[in-house]
């Protein structure tokens, strides 16, 4: 039973980290390799504010705000000039951004690993398993965010616009949608999601400037597997989370890492369009 809960948590973490990458790739066709660097900025902001006596929730909010602002700056200074360019270019440019951010953090805060205390402690007993409250909180937050996003995409006018831009950008522009503005907001939203992921995962991790960088490759592959649909993302995260948890639990964690990557490679070969919910 413990494995099931571990898998649920693992899926949630993958979702949390990949959702920002997902919106940016889906709406802008840009691979944001600076995603985990944004997460690192968020977690250092959180660290800074908790260090100055703010409580955790305020600091986390501030972390998200800082990252959002940073996203807007990066969009304005760099990403804006890359629209319509080949995907290789965006990979290189955002990689450069991530080098800059990580090193700025190292210079400003030092490279020593530190950590930040979780705001919730203790566990509850459920189905014979002790579950940490903070982890339950993360799973619940992720579920809420994904549900809210699904609802927005499906039912709101903004969601309609998003879907139009996703499926056919020139057509959307043709019917008078300011697709440039949509993309700008998308990048900023992606950064905000990175901020959320960074601040939420912060208390569960050792914090150094290369925070979460080990997650970049696997989340990137997950997002490619998603086929640019939220349902696909859900599928992909479940697949990756299951592979990760099962191979860790019954094999060893190195194999698990390799298996997550292999899953993506095989899935993308068999279904180049990604894991899309079958439509009727």
């Amino acid at each position, binding site marked *: 039973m413990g494995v099931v809960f571990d898998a649920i948590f693992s899926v949630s973490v993958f979702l949390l980290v990949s959702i920002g990458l997902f919106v940016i790739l889906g709406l802008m066709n840009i691979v944001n390799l600076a995603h985990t660097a944004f997460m690192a900025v968020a977690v250092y902001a959180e660290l800074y504010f908790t260090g100055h006596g703010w409580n955790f929730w305020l600091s986390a909010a501030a972390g998200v705000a800082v990252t959002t602002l940073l996203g807007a700056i990066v969009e304005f200074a*760099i990403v804006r000039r890359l629209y319509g360019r080949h995907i290789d*270019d965006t990979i290189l*440019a955002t*990689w450069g951004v991530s*080098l800059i951010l990580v090193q700025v953090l190292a210079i400003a805060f030092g490279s020593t690993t530190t950590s930040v205390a979780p705001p919730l402690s203790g566990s509850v007993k459920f189905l014979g398993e002790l579950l940490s409250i903070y982890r339950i909180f993360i799973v619940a937050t992720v579920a809420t965010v994904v549900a809210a996003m699904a609802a927005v995409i499906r039912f709101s006018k903004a969601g309609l616009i998003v879907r139009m831009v996703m499926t056919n950008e020139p057509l959307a522009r043709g019917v008078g949608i300011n697709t440039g503005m949509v993309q700008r907001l998308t990048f900023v939203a992606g950064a905000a999601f990175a901020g959320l992921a960074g601040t939420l995962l912060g208390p569960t991790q050792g914090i150094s400037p290369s925070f979460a960088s080990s997650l970049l490759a696997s989340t*990137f592959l997950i997002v490619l597997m998603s086929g640019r649909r939220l349902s696909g993302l859900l599928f992909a995260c479940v697949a990756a989370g299951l592979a990760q948890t099962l191979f860790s639990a019954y094999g060893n964690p*190195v194999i698990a*890492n390799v298996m997550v990557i292999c899953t*993506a490679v095989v899935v993308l*070969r068999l279904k180049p369009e990604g894991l899309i919910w079958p439509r009727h």
Partner: protein
Amino acid sequence: MAAALASRRTVLACLSAAALVGAAMTGALIGDAYVTMLLAQSFTYAIAAISLDLVWGYAGIPELGHSLWFGIGALCVGSMTTSVSETGGVLAAGADATTYILAAAVGVVLAAAMAAIVGWYAFSRGATHFYIAVVGLALAAAAQPAYSQFPRYTGGEGGLFGFAYEGFSNAEWYYVSAAVLLCVTAFLIVLVRSDFGLLLRAVRDNERRVRYLGFNVERIKIAIYSLGAALAGLAGALYAAMEGAVSAPLFGTLFATEMMVWVAVGGRGTILGPAIGTIALGLGGSKLSAAFPLEWSLFLGLALVLIVVFFQAGVLPPIARGLARAVLGSGHKAEQNRSLVAGRETAVPARDASASAAIEISGLFFAYGGLRVLRGVNLEILKGELLCIVGPNGAGKSTLIEVLTDGARNFAGQVAFLLGDRVEHQGRQQDVIARSGVVRKFQVPSLFPSMTVAEHILLATSNGRWPSVWRRTHAIGVPPVVEAICAASGLTGRLEEVAADLSHGVAQGLEMAMAVATRPRIVFMDEPTAGLSAVERAVVGDLLRVLAKSGITVVLVEHDLDFVERIADRVAVLHEGRVLEVGAPSQIAQSDVVRGAYLGSFELEKGDH
């Protein structure tokens, strides 16, 4: 020869080569041990960089895991020259020269073989263009953790070390690596400037079109990917023999990205640019990183962003162009260095009186997803005839051509080609069909934006045979009618113009010239007169008659019924995915059925024939 030497490209190449040789000499001149060593090491990186440029810059394959091949070459040398304990401790290191050479050879072969397997898996049909990037990234990302799982061969976390080849002094290493770099550079320059190099650029520019010229694109990509890997493996082996250390990060994504930075800075698709860029970054980088250890990777990131955003072509090419202009003066014009040479008219087979079929189509059904486009086409296309397919918009004319030139499409029904033996169409790939002498001209010109007119025609004349990997053809042998098409469409004086600059009408002419230059037996022309003036149209009509007279079967999709009436031997009317009528132009013009179809009042129950 003198004229050729004066061409700007050659000057650029000479200047850069001089810079490269100059860089190779400076180390020895300075005599500084550290600079000598640093250069020797940069040379091995430069080999890796130009091998990546071949794959990424020339063939356009997005390669995010090039470090893997470098690592394999290095690991082979490390593994074969050390003895290692079960848990990865290095017990003894070093071997004789033969072992190093053997190990390097094994590394190169292994890298090439693995790349061929990866390429076979990643380039085969059904995978998207970007898939290879995913595989490369995944392999590099997986290789790093996997490395420590085999300590018996890899030395685990700490890697293998201490196995540097002792037979060379620093200066000798310098000359050895410089020599290898120069050889590889020369080899690649010859390769990319050859006719085969053209083919690579064509694949990069427009992969689908290359298929329709009869080339097996997958095989080309696998070959280049594997060649790139072999050269990177060579670089890795050289590096390992020189440095005597190999560990997991050599395989990792970080190193792969660094290689991409070298290429991007030097200028993609220039070979010399990445070589010089890598060496410059190696020298400058070591100095800057020593002076600013903390800020160095900040600079690197900043430089990368600036280059990608503002200097798309890399930093070196603009500088080199500036130098070239300074040397030659501006206003120097690229001069024509390729020309068409019309071959003798092949003996015209008298038109077969019995008019046997070239293509038999019966009961052909095809749908795009849920949209049924062809609903039971029955048609016989005769050898040597000029058949026009007419019909209202949406009748399935272009789709019919699409299906007839791509047997891998998922269609139902019987289609057979009877050029010589009877060949079933089902499952035959585009390039196989094209090589059998069945080619098509696209409705919307589908060209290679970065290539010149002459280069387009040159590629087409190979008709799917791999062009020479070292020769650079100047006189392009074409059938006489190609020259006529060029003259008629105004291409003759513009052979050195880049396709991206051509107007629509001229591009149409080029499309047609390419189709004919392959010396086809059947040619499908999708609206060759679209966008042409009445005068041009008449010329094209005459050319098509000439084609048909030379024994080529011409199948034409056309809207202009007057034009059709003037040139066609037979006309087939397609409506709602079925052939309504086939017959002589005059007969069709009087058909009620056809008139009805065009007016939209036709009743389906009248049947197909």
